[in-house]
């Protein structure tokens, strides 16, 4: 399935028609929102939770403020730990670096921990095409999605949209699993299937949840043990991280992880937390012989130069915004055409893929602010979406935005002209009234052609009253209001009070 954000409208229209999926996702989101809310009570009352989020936001502010220095500090400490640090300017360069490592270490089989950045750079596809190496996703949901050949539906629940029958059929088709609808049996079968791959993989590839500058360590969280396998059994471990994943020290990192897991799966902490401090040492029996970290920019430093766009790098990838987003919950992940669905994608995709290609991402938004209200990293979603819309209007070469079309611009110019000239405004209303009311029946219009037609796909529109509010005001409402007010004020008690005053 080759999805692109340009196809948002057509994919969204198909997905939204799948009301069974929509209802299911809304229901699951309700459960997760409840779990996350409950997990957040560990910080205390509402005000204490706000404070915990504010501290998270401050940590991200500090990390971003000192990003170049923190990355250099991380690099020097990681190198001291025996980790080799590589830098990639874009997706292509990052993929090629991994390919070089595959060849250098004569890798035949790769196992992976679920990594969003590897999806972002299209690593699986690139490696399979360029090297012929076999790649196995280690996270169950991601493994199912990999077999199905689709994008993950949610960053932490990649297969959350599939029911057990669909999952059973996919696994039956792709890995010869005997068909069963028993979830336990499915898990056992996949575990057995993957165990063998984990044991003989030459290379493990993961993302990074937080990189610690002061010690040169990597922290990864997970629930299934696949990351533990992938980072300790193969000869080579390659960790991919985007530039914003670094923070100053452990205290900062663990506060962020506490917020991450609580807002992601509603857990106080995940089943596994791996803190990696380098490859196997001489006196150790476990761990990879070689360990690499690839630090990927992929368009981020261009955003970093702008004080507002830089804010888009706050995200810690918990996904809480998604389960609050009325749009994402109804259309799912596929219309976003990339691996970051929902508000998370609306924030980052325009900066990396360009404003023109991603126009529907930042426009298919009611600006309800649900995402911003729950974000534990202080992301100013609404300011960013407003900025993208404004950049689209004026055009922005740095971020792939051509100017807005003349038709839309003219429409808003006319509207503004009307706003400045009450007489013009009044005649505009008159024309609209005549047009709409001529087409209405029993007080409502049920259909109009032209630019407003979308409204009528599910809604009616009330007739415009013959007298405007202004007319009513002039013709008696003003007088009536004055009389009503004076009746109230003229009460003896009020008079007595005001005399005293």
């Amino acid at each position, binding site marked *: 399935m080759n999805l692109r954000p340009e196809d948002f409208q057509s994919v969204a229209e198909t997905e939204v028609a799948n009301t069974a999926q929509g209802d299911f996702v809304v229901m699951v989101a309700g459960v997760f929102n409840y779990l996350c809310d409950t997990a957040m009570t560990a910080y205390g009352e509402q005000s204490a939770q706000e404070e915990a989020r504010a501290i998270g936001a401050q940590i991200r502010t500090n990390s971003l403020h000192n990003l170049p220095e923190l990355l250099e500090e991380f690099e020097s400490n990681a190198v001291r730990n025996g980790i080799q640090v590589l830098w990639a300017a874009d997706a292509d360069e990052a993929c090629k670096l991994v390919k070089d490592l595959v060849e250098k270490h004569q890798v035949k089989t790769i196992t992976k921990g679920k990594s969003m950045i590897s999806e972002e750079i299209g690593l699986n596809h690139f490696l399979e095409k360029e090297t012929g190496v076999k790649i196995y996703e280690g996270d169950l949901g991601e493994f199912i999605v990999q077999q199905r050949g689709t994008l993950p539906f949610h960053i932490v629940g990649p297969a959350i949209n599939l029911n057990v029958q669909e999952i059973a059929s996919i696994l039956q088709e792709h890995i010869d699993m005997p068909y069963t609808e028993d979830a336990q049996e499915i898990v056992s079968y996949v575990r057995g299937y993957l165990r063998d791959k984990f044991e003989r993989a030459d290379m493990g590839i993961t993302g990074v949840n937080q990189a610690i500058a002061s010690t040169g360590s990597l922290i990864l969280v997970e629930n299934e043990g696949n990351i533990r396998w992938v980072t300790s059994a193969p000869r080579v471990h390659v960790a991919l991280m985007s530039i914003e994943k670094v923070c100053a020290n452990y205290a900062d990192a663990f506060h962020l992880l506490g917020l991450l897991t609580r807002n992601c799966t509603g857990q106080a902490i995940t089943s596994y937390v791996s803190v990696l401090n380098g490859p196997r040492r001489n006196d150790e029996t476990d761990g990879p012989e070689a360990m690499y970290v690839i630090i990927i920019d992929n368009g981020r430093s261009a955003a970093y130069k702008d004080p507002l766009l830089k804010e888009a790098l706050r995200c810690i990838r918990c996904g809480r915004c998604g389960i609050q987003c009325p749009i994402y919950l109804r259309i799912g992940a596929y219309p976003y055409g990339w691996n970051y669905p929902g508000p998370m994608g609306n924030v980052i995709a325009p900066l990396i893929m360009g404003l023109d290609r991603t126009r529907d991402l930042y426009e298919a938004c009611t600006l309800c602010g649900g995402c911003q209200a729950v974000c534990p990293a202080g992301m100013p979603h609404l300011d960013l979406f407003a900025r993208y819309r404004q950049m689209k209007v004026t055009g922005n070469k740095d971020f792939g935005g051509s100017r807005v079309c003349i038709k839309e611009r003219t429409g808003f110019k006319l509207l503004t002209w009307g706003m400045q000239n009450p007489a013009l405004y009044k005649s505009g209303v008159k024309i609209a009234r005549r047009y709409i009311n001529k087409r209405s029946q029993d007080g409502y219009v049920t259909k109009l052609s032209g630019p407003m037609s979308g*409204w009528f796909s599910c809604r009616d529109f009330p007739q415009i009253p013959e007298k405007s*509010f202004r007319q*009513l005001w002039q013709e008696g409402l003003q007088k009536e*209001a004055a009389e009503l007010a004076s009746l109230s*004020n003229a009460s003896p008690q009020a008079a007595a009070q005001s005399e005293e005053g």
Partner: protein
Amino acid sequence: MGRAGMLAKRSDLMSKVSCLYPVPLIVVMVSVGEATVRLLARLGFDLQYHEEQTCCGQPTITAGHLDLAKKAARRFISIFEQDEVIVSPSGSCVSTIRNEYPRLFADEPQWQERAQELGQRVYELSEFLVDVAGIKDVDAHYNGKLAYHKSCHILRALGIDRQPQTLLENIHGAELVPMQLAHECCGFGGQFSVKYPYISEAIVRDKVKNFLASEADLLVLSDPGCLLNIRGYLHRHHPGRQVKHLAEVLAGSI
């Protein structure tokens, strides 16, 4: 007498209350404007209405045409800035003036200051009644169950939640019942509803589903955008069911 005392105090506080109406919608829903006037007048407020007011420019800001929005905003500020208190039955207009205007003039300090000063005196109706005037009971009557939809701009952009619910709880004969996902968007979003009608439909369908499941007789909300959207959907799919603006319910015009 508490009530009369309050009224007197009120007239000390503010001699004249200016009404700010969301023009594009008030054109359609004149009844919301009338209800707001009757409610405030009945409570003893002296009202004025600037007949030259048009639109605050919210749709222009939302669409990203900030240069045009500035023109509308300058005119708007000039019209209203002499008023002591400005009240609007539209949370999204209040949010535009209070939150967006100062940002719009980030590079024009003089206009920014004027915008900020105006923003401090613009109130959403329920916020004005409860927080400024100290009125929690407007002596309204309704026999039945009410559900309350928490409009995005009122709940999240302005942080107003308790005030409208307090006013509803104190309506004589009425019972405010809980509604699932009352805080979720109704799917209006201005241009969004026309540009992405199928997504908008899926969202408003769920909003109405939750309203019906609440078994309330009436859905109440405080933002004309949501009102237009939900009313239009109800009229098409559930013609017997009603949604009203808070002002209409409090004014007793239902």
